[in-house]
């Protein structure tokens, strides 16, 4: 093998682990060529039908090879491609004189707009329609269908960005994900972490790397080594296997090398996410109970869901409903806002809708009583001390034992000391705190660097909260994505946070990262990062 020098690309490491393998690029969406004069409308209509059938057949084949939820998603997509109304619309447009690609494009656009107009969770299906359109148009143009490749051997998946439909079909052959765009809280990042796949996002230049090139991916540092030799790739794989074996053996409570305890907690969405690892639940998201409802879920149903988690974990922090105009839920019936991230969301929903928060707090208190567990409850999107005091009063009146707040707004972080006079604990949501501190939309593909949690301004805010907690003798944890990153966790501990809450799959690597450093070494890292 020729000794070609390796080239290093730098991106943002968002899911730790190392992998090496050949690049396989995901085909991007096809460009729609200029409309073509049509001589035989019947043939165009037939081409439309053939394209939709080919897309449905391809998805059905993928569904058969997938399992569980991924198979369900792919089957549902195949059924949309097979939809008789969609097909009639597209064929009619072809018979009226459009070429097949434009007939498909126009028909999909019409249905996409209809779904978008319905809003909420249905609007998300609009992205699925775009995905299907790209597949069908590519087929009529004789281009490879966009979507996940299936080369038949393990590979490093390279793409502009990944859609939910792409990630649903991710098979065991995928060694790592590298995307040109995307940020630390993008869909790609969250999925990769939940699957334990090394991932690098915002990696400029990666889509220019030819298919088949051997690359090494470091999901912690964000470095992608391009043009490895076979031996170099094998060495990386060996190290990764050894590292995984080490993590699999990891157990016990969170400690630094010199024994300073740091609670390692789990972020969960329901009892189904609980695992035997970790020292309790640091973030129980309750949104799943409220999805797709015309009315708030009944009191008894809420009590049962909270009791299931309270009865099974050693300590649980429940977050009250975190929805609003940014994450619309039908039963809230909130009007659209021009700027939902700055609008009625989180605790602010309680300003405009009576009863939802009260019922939830009562249900949590009842579940705690029924299970004999102590309920820790926190509110999302708190901004002022007045809001905090009002929430604490209400929660305590309902019988909640420990009341806390999420710190997601810089104004709240700046007033951490005063907030802790009102409540028992704080939990820092680094994803939103970064979005609001750096005035950068979490989903914006071009602003990933502005959302990097290592930036000193964000670390200052975290340090202020931790300092306030130490003075008051009250716990201050982190429950954003940063807490599950083994490179960042020691830094957060060095800033003084007392617990880290993360996706269950992240616990072993964070535990091992802390065990390798003394508290003073963690503090040294924190000092260096804030300079």
């Amino acid at each position, binding site marked *: 093998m020729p000794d070609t020098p390796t080239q290093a690309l730098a991106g943002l490491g968002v899911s730790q682990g190392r992998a090496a393998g050949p690049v396989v690029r995901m085909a991007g969406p096809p460009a729609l060529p200029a409309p073509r004069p049509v001589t035989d409308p019947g043939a165009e209509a037939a081409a439309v039908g053939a394209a939709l059938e080919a897309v449905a057949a391809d998805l059905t084949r993928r569904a058969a090879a997938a399992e569980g939820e991924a198979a369900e998603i792919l089957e549902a997509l195949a059924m949309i491609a097979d939809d008789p109304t969609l097909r009639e619309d597209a064929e009619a447009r072809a018979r009226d004189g459009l070429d097949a690609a434009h007939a498909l494009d126009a028909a999909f656009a019409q249905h996409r707009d*209809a779904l978008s107009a319905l809003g909420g969770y*249905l609007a998300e299906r609009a992205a699925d329609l775009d995905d299907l359109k790209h597949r069908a148009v590519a087929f009529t143009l004789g281009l490879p269908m966009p979507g996940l490749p299936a080369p038949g051997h393990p590979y490093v998946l390279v793409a502009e960005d990944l859609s939910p439909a792409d990630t649903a079909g991710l098979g065991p052959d995928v060694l790592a994900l590298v995307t040109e765009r995307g940020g630390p809280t993008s869909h790609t990042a969250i999925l990769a972490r939940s699957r334990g796949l090394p991932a690098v996002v915002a990696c400029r230049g990666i889509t220019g790397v030819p298919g088949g090139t051997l690359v090494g991916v470091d999901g912690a540092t964000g470095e992608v080594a391009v043009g490895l030799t076979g031996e170099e790739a094998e060495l990386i794989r060996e190290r990764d296997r050894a590292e995984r074996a080490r993590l699999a053996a990891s157990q016990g409570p969170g400690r630094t090398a010199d024994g300073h305890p740091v609670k390692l907690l789990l972020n969960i969405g329901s009892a189904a996410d609980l695992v035997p690892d970790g020292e309790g639940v640091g973030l129980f998201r309750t949104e799943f109970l409220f999805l*797709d409802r015309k009315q708030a879920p009944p009191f008894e149903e809420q009590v049962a869901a909270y009791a299931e988690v309270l009865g099974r974990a050693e300590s649980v922090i429940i977050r009250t409903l975190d929805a609003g105009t940014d994450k619309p839920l039908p039963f809230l019936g909130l009007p659209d806002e021009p700027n939902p991230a700055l609008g009625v969301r989180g605790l602010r929903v309680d300003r405009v809708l009576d009863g939802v928060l009260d019922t939830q707090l009562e249900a949590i208190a009842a579940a705690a009583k029924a299970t004999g567990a102590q309920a820790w409850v926190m509110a999302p999107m708190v901004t002022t001390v007045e809001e905090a005091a009002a929430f604490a009063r209400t929660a305590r009146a309902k019988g909640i034992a420990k009341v806390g707040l999420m710190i997601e707004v810089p104004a709240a972080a700046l007033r951490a000391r005063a907030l802790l006079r009102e409540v028992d604990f704080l939990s820092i949501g680094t994803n939103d705190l970064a979005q609001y501190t750096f005035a950068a939309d979490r989903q914006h593909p071009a602003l990933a660097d502005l959302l990097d949690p290592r930036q000193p301004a964000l670390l200052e805010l975290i340090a202020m909260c931790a300092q306030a907690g130490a003075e008051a003798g009250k716990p201050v944890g982190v429950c954003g994505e940063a807490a599950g990153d083994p490179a960042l966790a020691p830094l957060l501990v060095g800033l003084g946070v007392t617990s880290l809450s993360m996706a269950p799959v992240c616990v072993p690597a964070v535990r091992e990262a802390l065990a390798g450093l003394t508290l003073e070494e963690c503090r040294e890292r924190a000092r260096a990062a804030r300079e």
Partner: protein
Amino acid sequence: MAQRTVTVASASGLHARPAKLFVQAAMNVGVAVTIRAGEKTVPAKSMLGVLSLGAVHGTEVTLEADGPGAEEALDTLAALLSRDLDAEDPAHA
């Protein structure tokens, strides 16, 4: 014209998995069935149509069909809608 009015029982409403099961069943009954929610009527075999109804848990929908086999087809589909299909999902059990 045979007709059934039924309340959507699935917790997630008539999309995702319940919509898929309903449309699959509608394709198999061998009779053209329409489903109406509010002012909107769509073919039961159209996944996009069914999704666009925006029917959630508790929405009342009306099924209609004509001709031989209509009654039986509507019974089958109405029975499906009145079950909580999410609760039957093995992945969530």
